[in-house]
């Protein structure tokens, strides 16, 4: 025992100290909150349901990070912008006029499908352009180079869409059919949140089947496994990577619609924080794994919505909801430090870093 203690170096000691203090804060905060009991059960259920809805959105965006990381071992920093571009365009060009003409309330299903289609199409377009112009020429460059390019792409798209549609926050129209709540399992759920959760489950299952059961999916998996061997097997690697970007962006475009339904407003900077958090979700679940992204997203969403109330309220911190982003980022930092392979992932980060 003593001998083992001697072997712990300075770094190990620091890391243990951080671990212990985080655990202490979390336990102390939770216990204090539970004793004070400021919220009703109803509040907690609302927190959790909202967390699941938000987590579904994170999961859909996280898929894009995971897929791209899987095939290129690159963090696509601009992925949040793919998410933003689709729904921002769909809101300005489609949802606004449709709502003004009353079509959206008469035919909510067709209206929403049209918005979804446009959002996904624009996201895919932006993603493919970015991949073709900014990423493809740099496949063989040192690792930091594509990351810097991706940061550049991210800012480029943000300010492009700001220039196109203006910098103000745009309201996403309220759809009458989605207003109000439905009773489910004995609780009243907001219809919009229910739609978000159901759609996400359908899309995730669809994606899983696509990757696992189709020929293209098989190609994506083999490129992720080993590009050189994939070429030998007759797989068009460039095309497969393009498809991967497209699929990831399509999911991000769909996530944009979910975001608009839940928060009912869009703007040019909206991609940044969800993008970072979805990246956190992807890492949390294990980057490169699709079920991992789903679990990570769900986990992060719930954590972020319950966390401020559960951990921070009891510590006597004023306005704890201001710090929900701090919780998400702290989680990101802690996961990357202590368990970079995530919940389900392999040790990809170590292997390629």
């Amino acid at each position, binding site marked *: 025992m003593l001998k083992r203690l001697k072997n712990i170096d300075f770094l190990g000691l620091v890391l243990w100290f*951080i671990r212990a203090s985080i655990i202490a804060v979390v336990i102390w905060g939770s216990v204090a909150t539970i004793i004070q009991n400021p919220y009703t059960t109803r509040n907690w259920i609302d927190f959790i349901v909202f967390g699941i809805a938000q987590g579904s959105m994170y999961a859909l965006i996280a898929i894009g990070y995971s897929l791209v990381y899987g095939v290129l071992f690159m963090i696509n920093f601009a992925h949040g912008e793919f998410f933003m571009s689709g729904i921002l365009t769909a809101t300005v060009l489609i949802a606004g006029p449709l709502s003004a003409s009353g079509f959206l309330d008469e035919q909510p299903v067709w209206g929403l499908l049209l918005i979804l289609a446009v959002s996904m199409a624009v996201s895919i377009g932006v993603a493919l352009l970015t991949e073709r112009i900014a990423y493809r020429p740099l496949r063989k460059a040192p690792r930091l180079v594509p990351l810097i*390019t991706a940061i550049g792409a991210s800012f480029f798209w*943000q300010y492009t869409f700001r220039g196109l*549609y203006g910098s103000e926050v745009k309201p996403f129209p309220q759809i009458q059919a989605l207003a109000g709540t439905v009773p489910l399992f004995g609780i009243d759920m907001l219809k919009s949140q229910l739609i978000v959760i159901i759609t996400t489950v359908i899309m995730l299952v669809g994606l899983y089947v696509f990757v696992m059961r189709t020929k293209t999916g098989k190609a994506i998996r083999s490129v992720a496994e080993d590009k050189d061997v994939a070429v030998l097997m007759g797989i068009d690697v460039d095309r497969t990577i393009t498809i991967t970007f497209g699929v990831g962006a399509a999911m991000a475009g769909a996530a944009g619609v979910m975001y608009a339904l839940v928060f009912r407003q869009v703007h040019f900077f909206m991609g940044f924080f969800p993008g*970072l958090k979805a990246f956190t979700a992807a890492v949390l679940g294990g980057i490169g794994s699709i079920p991992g992204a789903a679990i990570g997203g769900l986990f992060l969403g719930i954590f972020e919505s319950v966390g401020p109330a559960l951990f921070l309220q009891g510590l006597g911190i*004023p306005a704890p909801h201001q710090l929900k982003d701090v919780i998400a980022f702290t989680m*990101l930092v802690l996961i990357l430090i202590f368990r970079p392979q995530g919940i389900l992932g392999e040790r990809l980060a170590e292997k390629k870093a």
Partner: protein
Amino acid sequence: MPTMQDFNLRKAINFGLIAGVISLFISVIGMTTLLSKRQLIAGVLTLGQLLIFLAPALLSYQAAEKSSKKSRAILNSVVAGLAAATPLALLILLESLFNLRQFFINVSPDLIKIINFGQGTAAGMAILFAAMGLIGLAMGLVHLLQPQIRKSIFTGLVVMLIIGTFSELLTERLRAFFGVEFSKTIFQSKALLPSVAAIILIVVTVFSIVWTKTGDKIKQRLDVIPAGQKRTIKAGNWVVLLAVLFLLPQFLGSYLTEVTNNVGIFVLMGLGLNIVVGFAGLLDLGYVAFFAIGAYTMAVMTSTGALGVGVSFWLALPVSVTAAIIAGVLLGTPVLRMRGDYLAIVTLGFGEIIRILANSDMLKSFLGGAQGILNIPKPEFMGTALIQPGQLYYVVLAGCLLAAFVSWRLSRSRLGRQWMALREDEDVAEAMGINLVKTKLLAFAIGAAFSGLAGAIFASKLTSIFPHSFNLLISINVLSLIIVGGMGSLPGVVVGALILVGLPELLREFAEYRYLMYGALLIVMMLAKPEGFWPSAIQRRELHAYEDPGPVPDNAQTE
């Protein structure tokens, strides 16, 4: 060569269309309208118009250059020019049919008036095609000239356009030194007079032609100077540079000095991040955290308001730097085992955490929350408060010189070489016996120290600070400037800061598109010139090693 023969009309049209789409993009996001308020040549050319015609001109020139025969060259460039007009013409047409502005806020009547030259739909489109075709023709003709003369004409054009762009500033300076009458002979209503523009173009072109003919001889004469004298010349250059830096505020006037101070603060941060990213290869996206810590420490210590302690600037300065160093070590330690992109994301997270904490109600009683900290006094020196930008300039200058000197010595030290080894390959560096913990922490600490110093000066310069001044964009700004200048290169930091911080402040209309340009610049630099505009010798050698392994790298500098 097959590629030469293959360059047919279809390719020329493709080139033109790409140029046209670029011009369309610039117009639709609103740059054209905004920048057309700035006249370059009175009554002839605005910056907005230049922006529309720039891409078509460059790409139709390319179309001419790629052609195999001279007769084809002109045809190709004209066709490219005409093709470049098509997207803009479509915009005019669409706008006349639909109300595009309800979707795209920048497709305004003003923009359309610029593109169709105020002539209505049909006539405007015709003029647009004619103008673009003429530009193509001009580019084709220029291409036929001798390479030397061609180059000189381009130099003349660039000088003329740069002088025109900064007319407003130059007018103000000329008035200050030579009086209103003199400035009126060159500039009129903040733009170059057409006749003066023509004179500048001709003089610079002729001078450039003469220089290319005689310049080689002067260079040869310089080459044969013995080594001892060369060293004296070099030392002399340094003395002159320092003297110019010292006297600069006298020439610049208060507005330009203020801009220079802002550039200086970014140079200081750039020098710090240059150590972390450029030397040690640790991509830190949360660099603004140390800037914030330096600024907040300075604010809390010196502020005469409710939140401050009220000590003097010079006492608070070392404390701010120390606080930043401690933060650098504290944030650096947990990420020691991390590499590359994961490190970037974690540091980004740190930066955001610091900003959100400063903004939150939790620390409001110490840091003022969203209302920030006010009443920070300006620094005092020998009993006088340094209020004027011209006085503060020397504080910034001293900081920059100190940081530059430290960086320069470090880059040549054992520690500097250890950092570079770390940057190239961490595993190999460790195997060579480099203590990774110590080396990395020193990089974080020194980088943080410079940033803390910059933050402290920033706080006392502005006299009030708010959490939203310390967002991620600052980190991106600093990162962009060291990438544009050249990672690991000290002059590169200055060049980068002048381009990325100085220029947008001088062209104030540009401010709105600053981050768009940064984004585009980051991508273009990574694609075309990853070593930056003023690369360090080592980086240049490495990044181009696989392209032409032939020549000895030192010769590359004389190109």
